[in-house]
């Protein structure tokens, strides 16, 4: 224990001397200032659908309650007064589609769905079904469906009411924590081991009473301590102490996962440039779940195999409670199991490889 303490002290001193720790802390301060004072809390959302409803049936229905109008606005639906405005909107926003609803002389409706050239057929089919169903329900004098059609299906929901709108700068925080703190260990462990190797201090360690396990544990502790400080700088000014212990636990487990992988790479590659290429590759892979965080409808099962998925969604659940606390503990459990396996594996591989080198 004393030996680990001494190694840890040495690593801290070297970390400060090599400006690695100061760089991390300085950059965290810069980012938190950016989030607090530059990135706005509320942003005007890009429009995703321009609707011209000459019948006013759909428009009136949507605006019949404030909640429904708000839900449509959050989806990016925007009502305009002419076909020209629909097309103009679509020209300005290449992600937007258009919908034009007019009434025909025979009492039915003409629905024109204007798409972008890349819009998939499945979306067209979905809009067709949606509009046929909606107009069948909304047609004045009680719609056209007989009562048994309504009885064919019932809609239940686990929660009712719109979720509070989340501030934009806070929504970015889980991803920033993941990039800046979560994968800290991955980069830093590779560089710390590379440095020890080029300074030949790993060889010197072999004639000291400290073991390779103690050497590695000390490095993990350094990264956890740096991660703790960086995390606190980023989290506390944004969120206060709300959810701090749970978020800290998630981030610590993620750092440990990264530093264990870093230890394996550091052992495998005697040249840090070789290792860093794989680190960059892992960084891209670990970034993929962020797409699901910002676009929750995309959530395939295989994405959950990437550990950062659990960090991102765990942090999201901590910061934005919504009857979703079980996601935090699910994430903690999965990351803890991964950590135990990777920590043991990295120690064994590292020991074996370093012995071979010596």
């Amino acid at each position: 224990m004393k030996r680990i303490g001494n190694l840890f002290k040495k690593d801290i001193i070297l970390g400060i001397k090599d400006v690695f720790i100061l760089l991390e802390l300085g950059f965290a301060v810069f980012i938190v200032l950016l989030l607090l004072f530059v990135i706005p809390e509320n942003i005007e959302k890009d429009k995703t659908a321009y609707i011209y409803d000459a019948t006013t049936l759909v428009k009136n229905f949507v605006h019949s309650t404030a909640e429904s109008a708000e839900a449509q606005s959050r989806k990016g639906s925007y009502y305009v007064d002419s076909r020209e405005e629909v097309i103009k909107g679509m020209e300005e926003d290449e992600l937007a589609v258009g919908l034009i609803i007019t009434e025909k002389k025979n009492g039915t409706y003409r629905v024109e769905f204007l798409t972008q050239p890349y819009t998939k057929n499945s979306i067209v089919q979905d809009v067709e079904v949606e509009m046929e169903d909606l107009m069948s329900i909304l047609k004045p004098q009680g719609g056209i469906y007989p009562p048994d059609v309504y009885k064919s299906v019932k809609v239940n929901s686990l929660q009712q009411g719109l979720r509070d709108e989340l501030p934009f700068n806070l929504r970015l925080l889980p991803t920033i924590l993941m990039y800046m703190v979560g994968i800290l260990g991955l980069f830093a462990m590779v560089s710390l081991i590379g440095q020890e190797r080029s300074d030949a201090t790993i060889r010197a360690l072999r004639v000291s009473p400290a073991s390779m396990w103690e050497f590695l544990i000390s490095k993990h502790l350094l990264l956890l301590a740096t991660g703790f400080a960086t995390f606190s700088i980023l989290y506390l000014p944004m969120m206060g102490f709300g959810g701090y212990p749970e978020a800290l636990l998630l981030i610590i487990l993620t750092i440990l996962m990264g530093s264990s992988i870093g230890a394996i790479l550091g052992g495998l590659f005697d040249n840090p440039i070789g290792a860093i290429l794989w680190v960059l590759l892992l960084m891209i892979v670990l970034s993929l779940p962020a797409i699901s965080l910002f676009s929750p409808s995309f959530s395939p099962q295989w994405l959950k195999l990437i550990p950062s998925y659990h960090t991102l969604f765990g942090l999201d659940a901590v910061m934005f409670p919504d009857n979703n606390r079980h996601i935090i503990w699910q994430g903690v459990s999965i990351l803890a199991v991964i950590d135990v396996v990777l920590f043991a594996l990295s120690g064994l591989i590292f020991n074996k490889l370093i012995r071979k080198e010596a």
Partner: protein
Amino acid sequence: MKQLIEMFFFDVKMNFKSFMGAYMIIVPMVILIVLRTFLPSVQSAAGTFAIVTKGPNAVVDQELIESLDDFADIETYDSIKDMEQKLRGTGTAEGLYWDPAAQQYVSVRERSLKGDTIFSVASRYIRQLYYQKNYSDASRITEFLHGVPAELSDRTKTPPVATMGGSIFIVFMIIVTAFIIGLGVVMDKEYGTDKALRVSPLSKADYFIGKSIFPLFVMALYTIIALLMLGLMHVNILQVYLVVLSSFTISLLFGLLIGALGKNENEAIGIGKLLSMVLMLAILGGTLLPENLQWLVWWSPFYWIYDILEEIFTETATWGSIAWESAVMVGLTMLYFMLLRKKIIKGLS
């Protein structure tokens, strides 16, 4: 010139001797395979249905399941409890089961508007199928037309998410090449190679240019491979190469910065990591911020590269827009170089 070529061959030889050359070839290929596999799944489905398919609550109507499968991912569950657990978990999904007592389907949403018991994605399909089956004589209430307006017909058919892969990959290659140049310089400093080179006829410029040729070659080679693998060969390849070549100024700047500021690998990797974070921030800002707030990331050359590449891949770029945006990107890089010039020269001396 002779020294420069010799430096280039020396660099290539050293890279392959230490397996670095092989890693530089393998790692981008793995990234491309990841992007190639991942991106189609992002655009393939509009959502997820969690459907109970076993026991008394099983949904057995294949026609209904096939209709839903046409535009969303279907996940099957053994019980209502398992299905609801999926809904309470991460991601967005809609549940569906059969209620044998009420003889009706139950569509379960994670969250709905207060008092809404009618609208869900599955419910509209179910109502439509039921209505068509049991009231086959009834006519449609809507005449549905669809198409691309003439004003937008010259736009690309490539979806934005597919073009994202190309932009991400090229920006990634800029970072990789910057790391390779920077860490190469730091290692030469550590092993004293830089001192040995001082007594050789090689000038400093020859040394840095020679060290940059191989990464540039790898980047150029992988640009065409990326376009091929990501299905972007229809874009203007000349425009892509012009941007790739001009964006190499960022690789050089970052590489020199890493090499100059890092006294050892530890520092160099730390600096490189922070520079990668700057990259991520710019791309995050560029993709998540609405149009009116994009100016917040204008300071980053990465934003401009990402923006130009997006325009090229969506075939909306003109030579004029490429020229001015590339000029802004190179100008910003030069500005950062001028600001950091003293540090770079001192660090590399």
